[in-house]
């Protein structure tokens, strides 16, 4: 009812104790700033992870060989060599909705050209691979299905490998010796940057899997098969069909474990984003603790202030202030401290995360909702921690308060 004048009274009281008000608000400034910056870092990391997961390709099913338990020893993904080229062909032929299949073998080895050499990863893939991974070439052309059928000595290379071997020279058309076998470079991939595990995805040589198996790695087993499905609605069904097809082909009796592992990209994405969500929560919680500490600071100062200003409260009551007027006055003081601190904290938090992105190269993402929540939370902290001192002030007996020394 008399909030207007009471508001002025409260602001005047804060101005009378400038240093104290600033120091009290500092607790909230640091708390809110920390929440904004930490959640910004967490969200930035999450967004980056999501972008990287998306770069795996859309509607992709990954089939890994292995996890055999035949001897009681589990070998893990890609370990047992149970996937054959014929399995991939069967999937291509029999599973509906499949638009791309890439047989994959992986190795690491030394590659050389001229007097330069470099240790890098060799991926053997089918011609569908670039579509499945949505990984276009920056320059040149990919190898073709014909190259795969004939096991031609052609490859495409990543930006990192290219610059290590050729420096600034154009690698297209150059000869790259891989295990002393000369390969012609037909194209260079667009850079992808670091993977979620921190691996440089551009440090790579990709060649037909047939060439890799015949000329570089040897063996007849695939490490995994990448399958792309046309329609996300069909993903589940296709995954089940792949499982039953492979069980049938591998003669696995009902009740026995699969000798392969099927994952779809959504599952991988969920696992990865869950990790970064936990990180965001953790960072936010730690920062939240400092916000609570800031709130306790407000409560502490408000209690001191009520004691110090007992006579003032007595005078105000003597000249006609109701208990609610006094309550409102002290609550407004507390909420002003916390919400002004909150606004400054938000500005500082955004500033801090900008500095972190600029100098430490950490991606940060400030969302409107995190700013709104931080502000509302800081105001709520003011109400919560201001209420007890304010109620204490309002409950004072004017006679006692006037006599207080």
């Amino acid at each position: 009812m008399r909030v207007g004048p009471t508001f002025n009274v409260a602001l005047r009281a804060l101005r009378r104790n400038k240093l104290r008000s600033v120091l009290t608000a500092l607790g909230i400034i640091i708390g809110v700033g920390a929440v904004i910056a930490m959640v910004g870092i967490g969200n930035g990391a999450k967004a980056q992870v999501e972008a990287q997961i998306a770069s795996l390709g859309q509607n992709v099913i990954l089939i890994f060989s292995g996890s055999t338990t035949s001897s009681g020893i589990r070998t893990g993904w890609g370990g047992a060599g149970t996937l054959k080229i014929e399995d991939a062909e069967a999937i291509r032929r029999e599973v509906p909705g499949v638009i791309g299949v890439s047989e994959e073998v992986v190795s690491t080895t030394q590659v050389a050209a001229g007097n330069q050499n470099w240790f890098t990863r060799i991926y053997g893939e089918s011609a569908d691979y670039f579509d499945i991974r949505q990984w276009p070439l920056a320059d040149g052309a990919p190898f073709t299905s014909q190259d795969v059928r004939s096991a031609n000595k052609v490859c495409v290379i990543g930006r990192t490998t290219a610059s290590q071997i050729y420096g600034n020279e154009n690698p297209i058309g150059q000869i790259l010796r891989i295990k002393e076998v000369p390969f012609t470079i037909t194209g260079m991939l667009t850079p992808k940057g670091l993977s979620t595990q921190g691996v440089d995805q551009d440090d790579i040589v990709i060649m037909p899997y047939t060439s890799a198996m015949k000329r570089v790695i040897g063996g007849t087993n695939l490490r995994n098969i990448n399958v792309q499905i046309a329609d996300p609605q069909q993903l589940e069904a296709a995954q089940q069909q792949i499982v039953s097809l492979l069980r049938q082909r591998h003669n696995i009796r009902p009740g026995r474990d699969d000798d392969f592992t099927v994952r779809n990209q959504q599952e991988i994405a969920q696992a990865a984003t869950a990790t970064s969500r936990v990180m965001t929560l953790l960072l936010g919680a730690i920062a939240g603790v400092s916000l609570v500490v800031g709130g306790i600071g407000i409560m502490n100062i408000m209690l001191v202030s009520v004691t110090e200003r007992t006579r003032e409260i007595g005078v105000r009551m003597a000249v006609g202030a109701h208990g609610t007027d006094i309550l409102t006055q002290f609550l407004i003081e507390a909420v002003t401290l916390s919400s002004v601190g909150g606004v400054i904290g938000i500005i500082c938090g955004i500033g801090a995360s900008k500095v972190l992105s600029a100098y430490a190269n950490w991606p940060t993402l400030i969302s409107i909702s995190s700013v709104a929540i931080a502000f509302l939370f800081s105001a709520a902290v003011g109400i919560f921690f201001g209420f007890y001192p304010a109620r204490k002030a309002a409950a004072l007996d004017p006679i006692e308060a006037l006599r207080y020394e």
Partner: protein
Amino acid sequence: MNNGAIVSLIDVHKTYRTGEMEVLAVRGVSLEIKRGEFVALMGASGSGKSTLMNILGCLDRPTTGHYILDGADVSRLDRDRLADIRNRKIGFVFQNFNLLPRTSARENVELPLVYSPQRLTHSELREKADRVLVSVGLAGREDHYPSQLSGGQQQRVAVARALINQPEVLLADEPTGNLDSRTSVEIMAIFQQLNERGITVIMVTHEPDIAAYAKRNVMMRDGVILNDHLVSQRADAASQLQNGTPRPLSAPGTDLTM
């Protein structure tokens, strides 16, 4: 009972309970004060005069009995209603001034208006406060903080604050207790001037010299009224000041009625 009486107490008792002990602070006081009176309430400490003062000031309620202020029984009102009565009908002057520190004289005087039902604009508040400050002889001191004012000046700010809502009753609790004798006389001169303009003044004091400025003295002892008499040889503060060091309180012709 409403025969011109602004204040009437009818068989008022006040009992405090401190632990097991019952303290009978006021036991059966009946008192009638008419509009325009200037009463000094006297008595030693523990006589119950402060308790009676708190009841008269609507800061406290009697345990039994009735308090009729300006025709209305206020002895059973709740905290908030009592606060409203204090705001509209009573002006307080305290022994230790009780001004808000680091707050200008003007803002101190405006204080009761903050809690008043009438809504004034900022400039109206200011104008009103300044007028009352001038009337107590503080023209030019409007922006001073209490720490920049002498004791007498601070008490005058307090008087101005008490007057701003045009109260029925001015209640003063040992108003000269913290002042030297000359300043005390100055404050008494203001009280006498106000009283002549028709404001009822009730003042607690234990000094007979100060009580002599009132028109009527009420003596208390052990929670009851010992005697109640009109002052026969009333002291006139204004003429005392003129006979002493001539220093006018306020400009001649100052209007105390606002």
